[in-house]
């Protein structure tokens, strides 16, 4: 503990309601609580990982709805209070029952993971990317996931997986995510 510290206010907790994968979670939280901690520790959804905790690695990537549009963001760089009233989607919300999402299926089939730590963030980032660019080139995929680090360096198969998923999603005629 620092011996001397500036007077800090801000003990007041705030009630937040966040809809994650279709379920509403309502808790009283400190404003400084990060969204990723809300997801993991309050909602108990530990599929969203914390890698670097410094906005670099993308392991904590989730989708959030802004004015009807879903966008990939890093949940370690967002306060839970900011997400009050918002809808978010995490890796747990992608599959429909036993049926894997095309991205999950493609990562499985193309060996798009080694240790698997970056995978949830990689898949959520890929979903956000494919919504903006449904028919990407390999180079565009590489740029699209530049905010996600795989320390096994399994990028070749990750890129292959995303391209395969993009093709499957296009040919199915369905949107990237169905919520």
């Amino acid at each position, binding site marked *: 503990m620092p011996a001397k510290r500036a007077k*800090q206010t*801000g003990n007041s907790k705030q009630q937040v309601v966040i809809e994650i994968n279709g379920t509403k979670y309502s808790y009283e939280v400190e*404003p400084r609580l990060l969204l990723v901690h809300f997801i993991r520790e309050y909602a108990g959804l530990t599929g969203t990982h914390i890698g670097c905790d410094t906005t670099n690695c993308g392991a904590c*990537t989730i989708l959030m709805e802004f004015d009807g549009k879903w966008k990939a*963001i890093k949940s370690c760089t967002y306060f839970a209070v*900011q997400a009050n009233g918002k809808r978010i989607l995490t890796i747990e919300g992608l599959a429909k029952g036993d049926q894997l999402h095309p991205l999950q299926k493609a990562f499985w089939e193309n060996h798009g993971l080694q240790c698997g730590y970056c995978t949830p963030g990689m898949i959520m980032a890929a979903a956000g990317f494919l919504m903006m660019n449904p028919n990407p080139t390999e180079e565009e995929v590489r740029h699209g996931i530049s905010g996600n680090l795989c320390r096994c360096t399994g990028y070749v198969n990750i890129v292959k997986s995303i391209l395969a998923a993009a093709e499957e999603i296009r040919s199915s005629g369905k949107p990237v995510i169905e919520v």
Partner: protein
Amino acid sequence: MIPRKFEYFAPTTVAQAVSLLRKYKDEAKILSGGMSLIPMMKLRLVSPQYVIDINNIKSLNYIKDSGRVVRIGALVRHADIEHSPVIREKFPMMVDAAAHIADMQVRNLGTFVGALAHADPAADWPASALALDAELVAQGSSKRIIKATKFFKGPFETALKPTELLVEALLPVPKGPKLGQAYLKFERKAGDYAIVGVASSVVLNENNEFEKVALALTAVNPFPFRATDAEQLLIGQKPSKELIEQAAKTAASMSDPSSDLRGSAEYKKEMARVFTRRSLNKALERAGVAL
């Protein structure tokens, strides 16, 4: 990493946000995209007692094109600029810049106006704001317009008062017979801060002479600057390889980089020359001028 405790406000109007700022002054911080503020709070480099989140002020989210001027509201994200047809048509340098800021997730949240207010000496946006002669609108008890060229005062230091909120940026649309713009960024790895970034905007007349030139450099000085000596050298002249090289040398000689992880001061100065040349060449190419 957990920030220090703070009190959180989510106003829905500019008036509410400004009254909170006027109440808490420099104990408060404005949260827009949060892509610099939140990491700094997590590292406890800053620990504001009051955080005023402006993301719920829906009236600040617009790109408005009135022909001669384009107005960008405080909540416009890097990704909005990257994908805006208006920006693509009128300010191509901003599309160059937006696409190379950090990564997709950060671009989905970080804002143009917020980045200007943050005034990181290595940030990309200040170069565009300077080269486009942007005017920045600050709202305190009254509204005032600050020229981008008068806005940046030092590293993380601007002309903005603690009781003012930067609400929008006004970008005058360049006019003339031949127009070209570019932003060239030299980065160590994808999504990194620039080693050097050079924004250029050129206007040439019918005789193929430079009528107007704006050159702005970032990351090679305590704060981003206009390379006015290099601009003066070009005005009224016909572009040539030698002239561009001379302008690039002049721009680099105005820089004052510091040595760090991204390179030595000497190296950065050299790269400032190379990237000024390339940026000018790209702008000329887009203006349809062959050298």
